[in-house]
């Protein structure tokens, strides 16, 4: 149960920020959403998700609010802060650059 490596961790942060950019969600919904959108390829484990959410919250990229969930139970909803939105933009740009570069390398070989 080692901690996610830097690449994975950074990627997870990006995925979470992106997912939250549409609307506030709770942890379960974030995981589900990532799984759905990626066509079941990306399965976010709780062991990575919650530490990542809390870290992002501590850093001020996202903020949390308690609200009623679909089932009527109180749940912790996360949403992007203004700073988080900027962070998402820069991380998206980073990701694009990085994945392009990786693509080039992979296809060349």
């Amino acid at each position, binding site marked *: *149960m080692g901690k996610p490596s830097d690449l994975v961790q950074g990627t997870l942060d990006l995925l979470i920020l992106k997912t939250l950019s549409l609307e506030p969600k709770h942890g379960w919904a974030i995981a589900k959403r990532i799984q759905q959108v990626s066509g079941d390829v990306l399965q976010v484990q709780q*062991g990575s998700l*919650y530490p990542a959410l809390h870290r992002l919250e*501590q850093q001020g990229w996202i903020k949390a609010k308690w609200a009623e969930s679909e089932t009527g139970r109180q749940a*912790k909803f996360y949403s992007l802060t203004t700073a988080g939105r900027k962070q998402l933009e820069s991380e998206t740009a980073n990701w694009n650059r990085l994945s392009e570069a990786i693509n080039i390398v992979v296809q060349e070989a």
Partner: protein
Amino acid sequence: MRWLHKLSMRMRMLFHRDAEDERLDDELRFHLEQQIAENIASGMDADEARHAALRSFGNPTVLRDQTRDTWTWNWLEQLWRDIRYGARMLRRTPGFSVIAILVMGLGIGANVALLTVVRSVLLKPLPFRDIDRLVRLFEADAQGRFRDNIVAGGTFAAWKAQARSFDDMAIMKHVEYNLSGVGGQLPELANAYVTSWNLFPMLGVKPALGRSFSASDDRRDADSVVMLSWGLWKRRYGGDPGIVGKSILLDGKAYTVIGILPAWFTYPDAKTQLWTALYHERSPELMQMHTAHNFDVIARLKPGVSIQQATADLNTIQAQVRRQFPDGPVMDAANIRPLLEAEVRDVKTGLYVVFAATGCLLLIACLNIANLLVARSATRRKEAAIRCALGGSRARLIREQVIESLLLSAGGGAIGLFFASMILAWLLSTRDDIPRADAIHMDGIVFLFTIGVILLCGLFAGLIPALSSSHKQLLKTLHEASRSVSGGRASTRLRQFLLALEVGLTVMLLIGAGLLLKSYRQLRSVDLGSATNVLTMDINLPRVGYETAAKRVAFFEQLQQRVRQLPGVRGVGLSTVLPGQGHRRDDTFTIAEHPPLPRGQVLDAATRFVDPSYFQAMHIPLLQGRFMQPSELYERAQYILVSESLVRQYFLGEDPIGKHILPDIGEGNQSYEIVGVVGDVLEDLANPAEATIYYPLYMGTERSAVLAVRTASDPMVVALPIQKIIAQMDRDLPVANILTMEQILGQSTLSQNFDAKLLLAFAVLSLLLSAVGLFGVLSYIVAQRTTEIGVRIALGARREQVLKLMLLDGLRPALFGLVIGVVASIWASRLIQSLLYGTRPLDPIVFVAVSVVLLIIAALSCVVPAWKASRLDPMQALRAE
């Protein structure tokens, strides 16, 4: 905005941590519920859904911990947890904790107290403006024989007029005044200073009330004015501001009080009661003389001028003075010392030695605690090993160990501060001779120092045991069979090494204390050259009422006769200076019968004025000739006695009787005939006798004398009757310093006595600590080797053999330590050489005595555990595992 968000986040994480914990639990529970709900939706029954969800969820506690790890303030939380954990561990062994805290407290307390003293006395500047530019000026000798001669009035005048290196220069001298009582108050002899008017402005001292001296007060023809110290004003005048402008009687003369000095101003010492203007009090002739060395000179260096430059400046002037006055005791050079250094140089070495000793004590205390902790960590090796094996990090183990010892040293520090304040209170009450004792108090820096010492000790004592066991070794513990026969070799060796160090330091302290004690005893056993069962008191005849020589002599004669008739009195004498009271005064002279001296050379001897019965009263033996006669009065008092040393120094191979001395003592006769030679007496115990000339007190020139009364039994019993006699003779005459000779000698050896006793106290303490350490280490070894010993005994080893084996095990570190200590002492004892009197730094008696004491103590502390080992019941020992 992000920082604001982060800040509020931080605040929440700090102050609402419990609420956040609950929310986290709730958040995770929600996730689980969602999973279960999903599982049910996909067709599982409730129970199965739950199990599947839990399975996929993993270990909720680990998840929770991992999430919590991302929170801020985590370190604080962990620290707090470690502290609580450490405190719990310490509570489980209260005996160990209490001892460790007390040991630490003693070490830290002694250090804090001594640091306070050293800092206040030696390091902290006097509270004057630009203290680093204030200096004391001394007359000196170009050949370097005298460095710190006090200054003559004429010399001061020359310096002040010609020197270019100083902003200002002031002159002062200690005097005593008879302060008359008003309205039934007793008269008292007040310690005072005469000073040039510019001293207070130069130091930057403003009066608390009234005004300071002005240049116009400081002239012979000015009105008499006086400034009072804050203490005298409060004590004698009830702090009445109305006293300013009124007059008080000093030596029967009216002085107008012009000002009160502030409470903080206690320079040069707290005993100084009042100040008068020097050029008003002293004759202009005296203040032009280059031979009467009487005064203390303080100056303020110009900014940017170094002490060397200023010294060169003064040297040039003084050499010029010397050329101008080639005869008489005129110095030809100058010496400058920073004011602070000039004040404290007598006590400096002693204080540093004691401070070093407290440092050693603290080190011993730390070693001892490290030792105890090593023992504890050894008993917890299994626990540590298991934690390691389960993935506990070594850093964590070390942190716990260090925090535990930090807790101990923090407790010790708290107790230490308490000890320190007690030690300080005691110190101040016993050592009133320490200059600037009034400035001693604990301040912020001392508290910072305490905290520093606590951290240092905690880290030191904690890291040694923590680092002693490496990760590999820890795991090896698990590999070892559970029946460890003689485990923990490495930690045993470490403990023995620490012990040897401890013993070595103890030996150093013991030897240092031994040397100082021996030196003190040597000093006290020195023969003063006179009787010591003597009561002394200072008598100071005021100017008013005792204007003529006849009146003064009449008083002394009458006092003599009346005191002699008291029961129990065996002898009564009067002298200006008694043996053991210090040098006080010397004057230069020439010998009439000798050829004139080469230019620039002078003869010099200590000067005392005595009455005819003084020598018999003090049991100072007459070696040759006769005593003075009671009939030799005033100008007929031309007959003097000289000391044995003077004869040896100036009349080698000659008969001094009948020779004539022509002294420069100012008043009195021109020429004196030597009629007798008396035995030497010591000015102070630490120095050899000086050449001394005894002039007749009955010349009537002196106004002050010390009455010396030898008694059959306790001298103090005659004190009250004598005071009554004096009060009957002159109701307004105060007496001061009613002391026995023993007390005078005690005062003059106070600092030696004190240094020796203090060092001894530290040495005994550290001996105790080392004994505890030895006892502990051997008990531990025995406990560890119980099985081995049991096997040995079961196989037929004799009990004496076991005893011997164990004793040797314990004594080995003691022996190593002894060797280390003796070698280190050979080096260290040289450093305290200047404090020793009549004792060589490598005094064999001290070294041998210390070694024997140490071995005996070491053997005693090892005997109990060794004996226990030899009494082991082999059956029980083998079963114990």
